[in-house]
């Protein structure tokens, strides 16, 4: 073990450069560039506030990503719980000192950025769970003791985020956590049972939802129920995407988006605008880029030696998948509108920061993929 540790710290800088996943970096740059063009288009082809901010954030966070990639994976491992605790503290801070916008209190004012801690929590849960399951023997995983602990660790942040209220992010946090529990090897029967339980309790769950959330779910099942109210976004989004056709209406020519039919076009509905202007072809290419990104992350997990790195990469890949799927399915009218950004594409500092942070940990797993982590 000692020998291996020395080995790990003996990576030369050249070795590190050699083991960087360049395809992953290329993918990030590609999606990042597309996002700049898309946001430029939401501003009606003017280089102003959102575009400028997005470019600055992309460059800063990309630089941060490169630097953090060289942090050793064991350092991430050691600080995993700390990460989670800091995330929790920030969430509690939001509860008391958060700033509000359109009825929700989700942000902390850091002057240069309004930080949304729930976004950071998405990553914190994954890394925390990866560490938790890293040291547990596969035989112990099925015991109640090791089942209750992660569930509590998951319920606390989800509850805090629902209070903000932010159902979308809360579901995504829960989803990433459950994915890691699944990966760690918990017996399938638990998933089946809890799935059934969820189905049974659904009517009760709906009764405690906020009125606007209920409206969203009802309109999801029937958007024409209220075409000018809650169903408006879904209908308009579908019209925008559908009217894009195979090749799209052309860059900066998306009439639906220009006429302000889409209220949140630079955040949650960025895919709608992109799809309207670039059509089926563009959408499939973008989707393909995301699949490639997820594949590369899984690949890093496969070549890593430690369970921590494996669990983290597989978990993070699943999280990215969830974000992309939930967002696109939502704007296509396949899921209710819950407020989930599209990774890297959507305008929003906190979401971008957390994705880049998550990716830098993946890269660190890649660079130090031979590193063994002892379970202490």
């Amino acid at each position, binding site marked *: 073990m000692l020998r291996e540790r020395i080995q790990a710290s003996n990576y030369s800088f050249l070795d590190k450069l050699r083991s960087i996943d360049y395809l992953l970096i290329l993918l990030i740059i590609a999606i990042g560039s597309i996002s700049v063009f898309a946001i430029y288009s939401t501003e009606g082809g003017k280089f102003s506030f959102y575009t400028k901010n997005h470019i600055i954030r992309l460059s800063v966070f990309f630089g941060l990503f490169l630097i953090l990639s060289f942090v050793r994976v064991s350092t991430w491992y050691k600080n995993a719980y700390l990460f989670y605790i800091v995330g929790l503290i920030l969430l509690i801070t939001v509860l008391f000192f958060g700033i509000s916008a359109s009825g929700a209190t989700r942000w902390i004012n850091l002057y240069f950025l309004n930080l949304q801690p729930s976004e950071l929590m998405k990553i914190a849960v994954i890394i925390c769970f990866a560490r938790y399951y890293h040291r547990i023997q596969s035989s112990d995983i099925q015991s109640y003791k090791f089942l209750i602990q992660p569930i509590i660790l998951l319920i606390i942040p989800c509850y805090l985020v629902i209070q903000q209220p932010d159902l979308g992010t809360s579901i995504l946090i829960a989803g990433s956590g459950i994915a890691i529990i699944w990966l760690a090897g918990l017996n399938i029967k638990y998933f089946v049972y809890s799935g059934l339980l969820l189905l049974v309790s659904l009517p009760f769950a709906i009764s405690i939802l906020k009125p606007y959330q209920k409206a969203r779910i009802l309109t999801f099942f029937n958007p024409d129920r209220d075409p000018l109210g809650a169903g408006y976004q879904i209908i308009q989004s579908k019209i925008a995407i559908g*009217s894009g056709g195979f090749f799209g209406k052309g860059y900066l020519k998306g009439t639906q988006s220009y006429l302000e039919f889409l209220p949140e076009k630079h955040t949650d509905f960025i895919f709608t605008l992109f799809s309207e202007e670039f059509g089926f072809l563009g959408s499939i290419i973008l989707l393909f880029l995301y699949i490639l990104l997820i594949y590369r992350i899984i690949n890093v997990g496969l070549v890593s030696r430690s369970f921590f790195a*494996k669990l983290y990469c597989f978990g993070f890949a699943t999280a990215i998948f969830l974000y992309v799927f939930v967002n696109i399915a939502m704007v296509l009218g396949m899921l209710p509108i819950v407020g989930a950004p599209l990774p890297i594409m959507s305008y929003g500092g906190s979401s971008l920061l957390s994705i880049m942070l998550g990716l830098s940990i993946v890269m660190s797993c890649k660079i130090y993929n031979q590193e063994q982590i002892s379970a202490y």
Partner: protein
Amino acid sequence: MLNRGRNIEKGRVITRRMFILAAAKILLFAGISSRLYNLQISDREKYEILSDKNRIREWKTPPQRGIIVDNFNKVLASNDRVFQLHLMLDEISDFDVTIFKIKNLIRLDQFQIKKLYKKKERLKPWDTLVVSDNLTWEQFSKINLYLHELEGAKPVLSTSRYYPYANDLVHIVGYVGDASPKDLEKPEIKENFVPGLKVGKYGIENSQEKMLIGNYGIKRYEVNASGKRISQIDYIKERQGNKVNLTIDIEIQKYAQELLKGKAGSICAMDIYTGEVIAMASSPTYDPNKFTHGINQKDWQEIRNNPLKPLINKSIAGLYSPGSTFKPLVALAALEYGILDPNKTIRCKGHKHPYELYGVKYHCWKKEGHGYMKLRNAIKQSCDIYFYEMARLLGVDKLSIIAKRYGLGTNVLGDLYKDEKNGLVPNTKWKRRALEQSWYLGETVINGIGQGYIQTTPLQLCLMTAQIANGGYKIKPHIIKDNTINYNDILNKIKLDQSNFPLHERNYLDEINVEYYQRMYHKKSNINFVLDAMFGSTNEQYGTSYKSRYDNLKYQFAGKTGTSQVRRITDLDRELDLDTEQIEYKKRDHALYVAFAPYKDPRYSISVIIEHGGSGSKAAAPLASKLIKRIIDRHKLREQFNNGNTSLA
């Protein structure tokens, strides 16, 4: 080894499960792709039609701003009908052509055209450009006649703010103008904004935006591909903003402004029990109606460059040394702390033998001196020498406690006016902290006659006078009508407080927070002494405002003059002894006067400040005298109206 075996097993589980997940991901992505195929390829035509031919368009209709009324429900700010021309930028194929046509129709000059292009630069392609927010009827009818030739043009019937009392109220009510990017950050404006809507820029218009702005309406239309309306499908009516009811009496306010005409200064009047501000005049003034449609450069320069500074609301943003108007409070402090027996005699020997402290000389304003003075006479004749000595004995820290308690040193109207000043009541602690210097006794001495560091606003002086005149009770000054505050309740509270003697006697000497309608004094007799001395100052021979008195008991008032120096008086000045008119305007003293009326059973307090007006008794007291008569003449009417109001509520 067992461990290793387990680890291999664990690794296998993780990888296996990962592949199961990956398969699920592929399936779900395939689902998304097929949905995309459905929307964009199979159903493309349907959505294209929806997009091109059945677009739903929204028009926001502007709300009417809430009106502002005075105490008697007289309208101070109303809404006039105006004709506007808006351009829907996204419906215009060639902006230059449209503008050219409009230019010929309503005769825009080159400068206005340039401004429009600049305005357009800042807008999004789908925004609304307000070409003109105040068309004449002729222009408006021409536009309507040729509407079919004007792409994207939309004639709008809107309302705009009108202030019937124009100059008389601008410092209280404020004015409206186009919303700046900073205004749009305010939630109440952001949520209710419609292109062309005017928002409050100053005063009540600004601070009561939430009340006044109202909610916009929404008209939804189906429009065709070229943006022409096909049918209206929905109309949510706009809601007018709420009425704001002020405590101001516009008749008194108008008269106060009239009295100040041609001068720079302020007049404030207040109900000494309810704290209602009856008038708050500031001069010179300007016309808020000019701001509604954007003020022109010439008018703006005229206002801005006026040396008498009309833009400053002197009643709350003007800072002045209170001068001798501070003396009643100094006397009250000395009596309350038991520093001095009011029968103590001090001799004022005139300029030849001034008051001396550590070799520094302090002069009385009266060249030949007042002779032997007791406290009552010293207030009445405003003898500086007596107050130098009294302030020395009292000390600045004790004085500052009383001064703050009676309303000096903090702003009076809370956050209603963003430019209201706090003023300054100095003490040793303040000086150490702010200037990092220790306090000199000489500064205490001049503080005793209201000079030196001390700075007050006219409204603070009015409040101070009110709180002495009502027998030493703390009141809640306000300018927006509050129906929970009424005279009879307050009188009952005060009576109750008087029957509960002693209440906060024990820690009276400390800095304490007094609740509203609780006593601030230690001994009632001290308040009465000061009130009596102020009576003497106005109604007895040798009193400084004797000439402005009324003998009729109905109007009889009591007050205190003040003359506040704007610079140091040199020995040369004393020798020359020039009249006010002979001194350069900027160097003349400020004239001040505070008063309460009627003397028997007082109800109102008033403060007058004339910048560079010379002496308080000549320049300020006569104005106060005139206004007091008008206020008392209207008292009965106001009382009846307010009682009627409360019984209705």
